[in-house]
């Protein structure tokens, strides 16, 4: 099996290696933005208003005021809030960045996201796209799916 994996590694499409590099670079930017946020906004955290509508937080998340509340932005804001409120160490949670990337696909209004992660559902429930994020346990317990249902 190890030999097979080594062989597969050498034959993977070149764009997968690019993909890996992009993911690593994106995650580094994601964490750097959180560190910048800590340095800039944390001292004023206790005076901040609702994070989703705070200019400081929007700037920390790389957004400008007035942009709609998409799931990726709301999730990112929730991560920043955890960092500030409970000293959450984002560096120990590398999947946060992948969750953030997944949620960006919801910008396509034809897509819905299924997850077993209740925490992610809660962190994105104030998003305007939350009606397209389904918890697996709830979906699986529904009546069988019918077209148009």
């Amino acid at each position, binding site marked *: *099996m*190890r030999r097979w*994996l080594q062989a*597969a*590694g050498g034959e*993977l499409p070149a764009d*997968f290696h690019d*993909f*890996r590099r992009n*993911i690593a670079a994106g995650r580094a930017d994601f964490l750097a933005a959180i560190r910048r946020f800590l340095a800039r906004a944390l001292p004023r955290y206790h005076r901040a208003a609702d994070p989703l509508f705070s200019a400081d937080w929007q700037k920390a998340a790389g957004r400008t005021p007035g942009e709609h509340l998409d799931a990726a932005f709301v999730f990112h804001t929730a991560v920043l809030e955890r960092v500030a409120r409970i000293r959450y160490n984002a560096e120990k949670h590398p999947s946060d960045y*992948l969750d953030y*990337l*997944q949620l960006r*696909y919801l910008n396509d209004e*034809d*897509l*819905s*996201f*299924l*997850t*077993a*992660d209740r925490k*992610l559902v809660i962190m994105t429930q104030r998003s305007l796209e939350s009606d397209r994020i*389904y918890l*697996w346990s709830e*979906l*699986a317990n*529904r009546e*069988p*799916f*019918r*077209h148009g249902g």
Partner: protein
Amino acid sequence: MRYFLDTQLYSYLANGTIAPAEWRAALTGRELWLSPVTVYELLEGLLKANVHTFPISAS
């Protein structure tokens, strides 16, 4: 409407946390889309697999 799944759900199907019948009941009739991030995570998981974590290596 197309649906894409958190990568963890594919892991749950593979390790039996989600039974195949439950999977079929929930997803039959729904159009599924495999996101590039999930492809990345599944391939990354394969690359990191080893004889201790990947049961099929025993065969």
